[in-house]
């Protein structure tokens, strides 16, 4: 018989055949894109501005910090304002991946219980949605930094590898946390406090160089610390990032992605029973 043969046997924690899994995932790429778009539209369904909120959100966010730094703070430090908005936009790429990813499996219960497909598609969709939300912020940032008079240089092309690392990090985190949430639902309630802590522990409201003493020792355990620092160097100061910063971010991103993916793929056949 020429038809492909699939064998289903009792679940054992372990990786599925990766070749056929990846082929199946690739075959469903259109669904990932369509599903992400529909989820994004659903989030603003019924609102007056609809999809315009994708642009309004970063605009308002930068407006709030403009108020904080320029008007209330009475400062006119363009680089500080640029650093804060650039870092915040990249931070939201990762935090949106996490918040979208955490319930991606539990919210996809109907899909999981009625269709056989690579479950990792759901946290991937959460990361794609986070990327869709991030893209308009990039345009807004570039317009803003032009108005602020920040200089441009060829070094800004370093933004591409930094962004790719950030995407890998966000995807790995979404995959890992979506899987944890299947077994430990309370993680979704802890998440807002975790992301808020991450925001304050990362060089967003302050510069990486501002940290001194004891606190400086803990930078290395924060997966996004050097990533955000590298992003700020590239996007605000138009400088090439430190190799150490890039290496630190890449190692963390790869570690989270591979651990999360291994954990997810080895457990995903058990999800339908757990939901």
């Amino acid at each position: 018989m020429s038809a492909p043969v699939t064998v289903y046997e009792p679940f054992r924690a372990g990786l599925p055949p990766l070749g056929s899994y990846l082929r199946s995932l690739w075959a469903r790429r259109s669904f990932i894109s369509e599903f992400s778009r529909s989820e994004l539209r659903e989030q603003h369904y019924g609102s007056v501005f609809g999809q315009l909120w994708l642009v309004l959100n970063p605009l308002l966010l930068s407006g709030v910090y403009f108020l904080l730094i320029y008007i209330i703070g009475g400062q006119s430090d363009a680089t500080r304002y640029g650093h804060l908005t650039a870092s915040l936009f990249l931070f939201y790429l990762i935090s949106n991946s996490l918040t979208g990813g955490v319930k991606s499996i539990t919210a996809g219960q109907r899909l999981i219980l009625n269709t056989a497909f690579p479950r990792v598609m759901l946290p991937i969709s959460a990361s794609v949605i986070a990327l869709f939300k991030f893209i308009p912020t990039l345009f807004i940032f570039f317009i803003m930094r032009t108005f602020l008079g920040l200089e441009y240089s060829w070094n800004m092309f370093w933004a591409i590898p930094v962004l790719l690392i950030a995407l890998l990090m966000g995807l790995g985190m979404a995959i890992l946390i979506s899987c944890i949430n299947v077994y430990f639902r309370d993680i979704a309630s802890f998440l807002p406090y975790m992301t808020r802590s991450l925001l304050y522990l990362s060089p967003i409201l302050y510069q990486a160089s501002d940290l001194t003493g004891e606190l400086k020792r803990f930078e290395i355990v924060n997966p996004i610390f050097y990533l955000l620092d590298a992003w700020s160097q590239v996007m605000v100061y138009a400088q090439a990032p430190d190799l150490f910063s890039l290496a630190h971010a890449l190692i963390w991103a790869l570690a989270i992605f591979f651990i999360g993916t291994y954990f997810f793929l080895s457990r995903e056949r058990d999800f339908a029973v757990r939901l």
Partner: protein
Amino acid sequence: MQNVGLTYKTSVVKRPTLKARLKTIGRSNKHTRVVNALNSVNLDVHYGTVLGVIGSNGAGKSSLMRVISGIVPPTQGRIEVHGSVSTLLALGVGFNPSMTGRANVYLGGLAAGMSRAEIDSQFDAIAEFSELGDAIDAPMRTYSSGMYARLAFSVAATVQPDILIVDEALSTGDAHFKEKSLNRIKELRTADRALILVSHAMATIEDVCNEVAWLHKGKLMARGNPAEIIKQYREFMQVGKSAAANEDV
């Protein structure tokens, strides 16, 4: 399917609170119960077969379909599937009510494993089959439950797999659409395809299927000629051949 079994744990705690959970720590009394959804089921379905699966509520019919389609792994035994499987276990899987019917045709089709090009080429047929007219461009939130089910069935019935598994999806819409759906399922009966149909509607099963498997409490009670198995099942359930029973047993 060889000796296939499926068990799962379900919570039996009356009040699932942290206090109740803490109380059970270190104690032997368990707060879960093991359910035997399927018990040593042996079954083979060949191409060209239209197998009807019957049984009372909780017999394990849906569990069996989920195990065959690879949604849930069995806890015992082995299943070998030759060919592509498409499941129609619930209608409107993957649909987004905020989107138009048109967008959901793509979303539902892609969720079912079709390619965008396949949906493009089938779109007019799907829209025509659903009989939604201009409503296809309205958000699905505005649809009646019948309209929703009609579009969902139209999308699902377009997929052309080697093995099609349909669970209680034929009782959609009004009498006219039910008949149309049934005819569509009949069209899908070909020598190079296996069809598995779960239903409580005995008349439909007898009309469409060439074999019937009867499940009861996770066990395969009998398998064979539809008329004979349905007769045995009716006797077992002590249900006569009334109009109501013909529809749902």
